[in-house]
């Protein structure tokens, strides 16, 4: 039996979604003429500004397309579900947003994305556009600390893109935007938990098996296996496991400030996310940390997967300023 989805032909899902997005948000977004999978901010790119291009597979909405807009990303290259976009839309993004000051590619650290975006960067170099790349690697569960560069990029993208987008919006140089992006990535920590699987529009079968009563801590946003599977625990215990790890990695001093994202994977109600936030804040408070800002909601999803992640960004003055800077995207605003 097929999983339940409100779609037409599964092969058309991504393109029909983009149609629906452009119809809803035509005031802030448009498609590139060179590629319907290159979505450009109407009010972002400009002369002399570093262009920020993000992207990756579909199925994580509002990541990536929802974070395109003034003050955040200038464009997103959109792949098939859970599949990196090919080089062409990424190249189209570069050409649309290049303001003469260089372009930064930012995306999660996955083999397919690296190969495709690298090919696009090589093609852009032939057009004499300098493209640099910063990979996000915030998923602390996905590799040990001494191999942090192998980690996956997950919901922390939100903070890392936001900081880099604000830096570009401040008209920083490519060197500085790249420095900010690397710095933001290094100070962003995410842990996730999955409760139920997702299914692809084209197969409509469950991507993996997560039996009744069980959860998996550390599972990736495409269902990549995590670090521990076992019976579902109370919310506070789940959050404690996440926060123990995050606080340990972060090594913050009492009095330091953080930004928090409690993110739903798709099928988990806001009620549960806010119950998690209650414990997150208690743990941060116990550690003497000050929460500067909190976001709670579905920011980086895995189709209809149930579960959630907690991201903490360890702020400093510069990151705080950049996180606070207004931005106007179709699916996210800071005012």
């Amino acid at each position, binding site marked *: 039996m097929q999983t339940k989805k409100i779609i037409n032909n599964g*092969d058309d899902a991504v393109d029909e979604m983009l149609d629906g997005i452009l119809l809803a948000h035509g005031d802030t977004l448009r498609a590139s003429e060179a590629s319907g999978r290159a979505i450009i901010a109407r009010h972002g790119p400009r002369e002399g500004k570093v262009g920020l291009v993000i992207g990756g597979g579909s199925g994580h909405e509002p990541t990536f397309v929802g974070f395109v807009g003034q003050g955040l990303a200038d464009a997103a290259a959109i792949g*098939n*579900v859970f*599949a990196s976009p090919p080089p*062409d839309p990424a190249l189209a993004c570069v050409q649309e947003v290049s303001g003469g000051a260089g372009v930064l590619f930012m995306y999660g650290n996955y*083999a397919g994305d690296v190969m495709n975006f690298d090919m696009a960067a090589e093609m852009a170099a032939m057009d004499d556009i300098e493209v640099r790349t910063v990979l996000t690697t915030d998923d602390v569960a996905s590799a040990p600390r001494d191999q942090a560069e192998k980690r996956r990029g997950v919901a922390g993208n939100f903070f890392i893109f936001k900081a880099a987008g604000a830096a570009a919006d401040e008209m920083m140089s490519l060197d500085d935007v790249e420095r900010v992006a690397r710095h933001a990535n290094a100070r962003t920590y995410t842990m996730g938990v999955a409760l139920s699987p997702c299914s692809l529009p084209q*197969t409509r*079968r469950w991507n*993996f098996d997560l039996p009744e009563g069980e959860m998996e801590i550390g599972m990736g946003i495409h269902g990549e*296996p995590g670090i521990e599977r076992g019976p579902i625990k109370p919310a506070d215990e789940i959050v404690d496991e996440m926060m123990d790890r995050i606080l340990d990695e972060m090594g913050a001093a009492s009095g330091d400030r953080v930004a928090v994202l409690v993110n739903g994977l798709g099928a988990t109600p806001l009620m549960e996310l806010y119950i998690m936030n209650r414990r997150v804040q208690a743990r941060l408070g116990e550690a003497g940390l000050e929460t500067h800002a909190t976001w709670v909601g579905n920011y980086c999803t895995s189709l209809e997967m149930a579960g959630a992640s907690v991201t903490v960004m360890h702020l400093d003055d510069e990151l705080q300023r950049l996180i606070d800077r207004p931005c106007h995207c179709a699916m996210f605003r800071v005012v």
Partner: protein
Amino acid sequence: MTGDDIKAMLLAVADAMDAARDELCALDGEIGDADHGIAMSGGFGAVRTALSGMDGGTPTEVFNAAAKSFLNAVGASSGPLYATAFMRAGAAVKGSEVLSDADAPALVEAMAEGISHRGKAEPGDKTMLDAWAPAAEAARAAAGQPAAEVFAAAATAAEKGAEATSQMQAKLGRAARLGARSLGHRDPGAVSAAMMLRAMTAAL
């Protein structure tokens, strides 16, 4: 082998990938993100469309058209890997209108090199290279035999290689973080590689 023969081989692969779509998705679901069958059948579907609209063409032109259409339809990991493989294969036989039996090992070797170059995998990393590297070796060893024999040897070696991936711990790709949990599962990319070579052989 003319350009049309290459087309026939690639169309046979497209049919094979359609048939294996669900199996490859299920394999990918065990250690990856369950979409490898979609990538391969979608990618070769685009190849089919591109080649059907192509009048004539040299082997190199056919391989280049396949590379481009596969890549643009798919992205993912398979896209750049097979796009590079096909471009290398096309380059290896550049200038020839009709390929001889002696070109067959070069084709398989070029594809394996393309995959190795693009993916930077090592043998034993549990990727499609663990099918393509032994395939290239077997093709080289079969040099001098008819093209059909060369491809058959490559396919058999790729099948063995794919089988062997179940004993490997993944070092690259989505399965890389699985460590020992990837043991006992075949790599979907290696399995589809073997199917590809088998379908090519059958079409010759």
